């Protein structure tokens, strides 16, 4: 029996009730985050990875609503907490880093105040003490001379620096879990590398478990211990990173991997995935990947495949075992 997970999602469903129908953005997601590990969630835009993470802190904007499931943080269901209890989880137990550092910082408040605020709302501290801690954490995430930059406003910081500020803001409360929603997507490639290096260091220094959302498989390969692949609001495959890259068991994962350039083979035979993701308001009764899947069978059309164990610690939701004949 492996150690019980810090965070586990059970059958999480988050739907958006729009005028044109109910969009099932997250439709029965089950995931475990183990202590001290990094879980990568990959998938294309609209696959539900961001909404999954927003759901964890119950930050889903209307008309979205969590309609079913459980979010267990060390056994406690976050969906049953009062607003007050929830606020004590936000920032304190779970820190969150958002995708776009240009818009995710308040332009009207100084960096110091924004970073220190996480402490101020959770701990009995004076503003001065909180600011001192903020300077320390900012220093740690690589902002030099942080003490003298506390009074600066976000517009004085570059994108990479702002993302560091965001990370400091998420870390200062010493959370057990850090959720990073595409933390490097809005950054230059060189800055991306620096920020990712920072995440590695954080894992070592703070001992936090990390959920890393990205659509960049390269980042996942370098950072994650486990990977969950999402498609149309569901987890279609879950495996240890190495296993996922060497023995994918879901056609979508296989297709994703084929979009990656391989060293030595040149970039000429990159395979795009044909077709488009399904309309989340009109999901078919069967497998959502059916239209784009080269291996589909009649049965796939009739019944959606559940997430089933296909190997040690390896789960996939596909009726067809395309590896069988090889």
């Amino acid at each position, binding site marked *: 029996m492996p150690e019980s997970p810090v965070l586990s999602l059970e059958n999480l469903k988050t739907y958006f009730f729009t005028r044109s129908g109910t969009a099932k953005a997250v439709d029965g997601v089950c995931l475990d985050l183990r202590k001290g590990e990094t879980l990568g969630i990959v998938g294309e835009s609209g696959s539900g990875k961001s909404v999954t993470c927003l759901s964890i802190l119950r*930050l889903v904007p209307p008309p979205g609503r969590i309609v079913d499931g459980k979010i267990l943080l060390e056994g406690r269901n976050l969906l049953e907490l009062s607003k007050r209890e929830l*606020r004590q989880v936000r920032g304190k137990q779970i820190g969150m880093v*958002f995708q776009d550092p240009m*818009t995710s910082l308040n*332009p*009207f408040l100084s960096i110091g105040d924004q970073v220190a605020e996480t402490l101020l709302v959770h701990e009995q501290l004076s503003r001065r003490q909180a600011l001192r801690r903020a300077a320390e954490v900012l220093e740690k995430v690589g902002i030099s001379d942080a003490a003298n930059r506390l009074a600066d406003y976000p*517009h004085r910081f570059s994108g990479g620096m702002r993302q560091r500020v965001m990370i400091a803001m998420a870390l200062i409360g010493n959370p057990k879990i850090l959720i990073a929603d595409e933390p490097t997507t809005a950054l230059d490639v060189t800055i991306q590398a620096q920020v990712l290096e920072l995440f590695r260091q954080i894992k070592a220094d703070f001992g936090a478990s990390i959920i890393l959302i990205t659509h960049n498989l390269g980042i996942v390969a370098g950072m994650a211990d486990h990977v969950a692949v999402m498609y149309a609001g569901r987890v279609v495959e879950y495996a240890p990173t190495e296993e996922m890259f060497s023995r994918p068991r879901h056609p979508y994962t296989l297709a994703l991997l084929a979009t990656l350039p391989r060293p030595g083979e040149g970039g000429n035979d990159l395979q795009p995935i044909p077709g488009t993701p399904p309309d989340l308001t009109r999901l078919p009764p069967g497998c959502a990947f059916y239209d784009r899947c080269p291996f589909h069978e009649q049965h796939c059309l009739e019944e959606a495949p559940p997430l089933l164990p296909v190997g040690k610690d390896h789960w996939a939701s596909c009726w067809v075992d395309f590896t069988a004949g090889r």
Partner: protein
Amino acid sequence: MIKFILRRIALSLPVIFLIATTTFFILRLAPGGPFLSERAIPPEIQANLQAKYGLDQPLWIQYGRYLRSLLRLDLGPSYRYPERTVNEIIVEGFPVSFELGLAALLVALLIGVPAGVVAAVKHRGFLDRLTMSVVLAGISVPTFVLGPLFIFFFSLTLYWFPPALWGSPEQLVLPAITLGTPYSVYIARLTRTEMLEVLQQDYIRTARAKGVGEFRLLWRHALNGALLPVVSFLGPAVADLVTGSIVIEKIFAIPGLGRYFVESAFSRDYTTVMGTVLFYAVLLIAANLVVDVLYKFLDPRIEYR
């Protein structure tokens, strides 16, 4: 900062000159004159009066004289009230209008901003609909209806406040509310719209993710951004409010500046019209300058050079 203010003041001088010139010539284009009335005045007296005020001179000489006296900040004598100068009229009426205007502004802000915030927070809820209905009513009902209604209820029925006249703080209440109401509803609507916009921003979500409570969220994270457009609306609004409203001053019998605006125009009291218009222009320019300076403190991204 000082440099910015000085430059703005320098830039407003040509504006003021243009306004003075335009007012001067537009008035002269209007038919009639200050000493024409239904009651026939003997031609000699007529000519005497014209000569006394230099109205018999060619227009460009009159214009030159007017500009010269403007340089000395002298707005000239009033034609309608021969014993007073325009400067005196403004000095006498403005403090009254100013006090009333500031009180109305306070009413507008104290009602408008909280109402707008509440409506935004309870977006599409009962309180939002209620506030917006009141706003609609407030915009639709003109002050000359609102004033008498207030007098009827709060004065003649409930005896809470005196119905008219000027001097005591109680006498300030009804006119201030009447004058402030249209502004308060406008501010409420503006605040609501901006607040809804700000509450959608990513940084509000960031604050929520930190565990910030709803009150702190509104007060510290959202209000500042939402109030920027309100502040820019306040520039012209303040200038409007403090120069007095003839409607309010008539209804409540208040000796403010507002009535001079209208009366002087009807009686072709050239100097008084030009004086009050210029005074209003200067106030407007000053109020907008104050707003721009205030902006700097509200929005750290703005830097003046």
